[in-house]
């Protein structure tokens, strides 16, 4: 049971408040956020910041971890909330097959090169194309939302890769207003 003691130390060391490992099959974003919100109440976080954090949590749970839902017994996605000096950081990690990795890779590469204005324009274009969005368009919108809500403070990398799977980690920083 030493792992509890080690986990507590690691959580404190990294300033993490919450870690959830799941396949997020039941869209628990609201209840995930209620834990986050309770914590933020103590820190007097303003409403606008809370809303930005909530939107990012929803995008993470509903659109980034969504591929995991097909495998009901797997818990290959992780969501962490990290308190940083000037705000909060949301970290999402999810296992990707090669096809999704390539798709997300190209979306992330393109989005991270755009300015906030260009991102807003791209979002408008996607929404105006058609009402029924495909997976790629949903992922595009989710990632655009993360970039705009964090004013571009998004970092992504892969932790562990082999020929079949990669583990993508995205860190989104939300500064206090």
């Amino acid at each position: 049971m030493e792992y509890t003691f080690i986990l507590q130390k690691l959580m404190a060391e990294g300033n993490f408040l919450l870690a959830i490992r799941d396949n997020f099959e039941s869209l628990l974003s609201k209840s995930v956020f209620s834990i986050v919100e309770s914590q933020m109440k103590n820190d007097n976080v303003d409403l606008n910041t809370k809303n930005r954090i909530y939107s990012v949590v929803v995008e993470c749970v509903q659109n980034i971890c969504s591929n995991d839902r097909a495998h009901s017994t797997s818990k290959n996605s992780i969501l962490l909330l990290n308190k940083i000096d000037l705000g909060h950081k949301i970290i999402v990690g999810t296992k990707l097959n090669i096809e999704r990795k390539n798709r997300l890779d190209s979306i992330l590469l393109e989005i991270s090169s755009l300015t906030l204005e260009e991102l807003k324009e791209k979002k408008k274009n996607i929404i105006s194309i058609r009402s029924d969005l495909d997976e790629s368009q949903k992922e595009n919108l989710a990632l655009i939302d993360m970039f705009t809500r964090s004013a571009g403070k998004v970092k992504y990398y892969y932790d562990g890769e082999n020929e079949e799977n990669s583990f993508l980690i995205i860190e989104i920083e939300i500064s206090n207003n």
Partner: protein
Amino acid sequence: MAPMETPLKQIHSIMNDENAVLIYSGEFNQEIVKSMLNYTEGKLESSGIDDLVRKKIFNVMVEQLQNITKHQYTDDDKQIVQPCFVLIEQENFYNLVTGNPIHIDTIQMVTDRINQVNSLNADELKDLYKQARLNSRISDVGGAGLGFIDVARKTENKLDFGFYDIDSANYKYFTLKTQINKIIA
């Protein structure tokens, strides 16, 4: 030399190894406790688990979280450790694990109480519970350990516990693990 793993990677790896699905580390208050109970309830509901088991998990979780809320602080100048709650889902059971600082003066009493609880069968636990409740009405001291008896009765499993050294002359870190079977015998 191999690169040092970040806390994030280490947390993820321990969560995978131990089948942990939720970790909360930080201050515990009524709001936090309520939201964690809501999260777990939603999770259990969606997993289609038996109502009786769900109720058991919920009740034991309330008991353990209230206990952390009560014993999360130390008298030391600075808070050197954070209380912690971990939910573990295994194939046949759930574990609820809590961690909080404990004053070294109470370690022996807690150890004796848990060992006593672990040595009793269901009927003996029932008697001990009645006796402890009666004592708790007479004095606060007599009620110490009532929570352990209650949790052991509800889970019908032994309590697992440990104490770990921290950077304090007066406190250690106390971990308590309970187990609730998914299928009731």
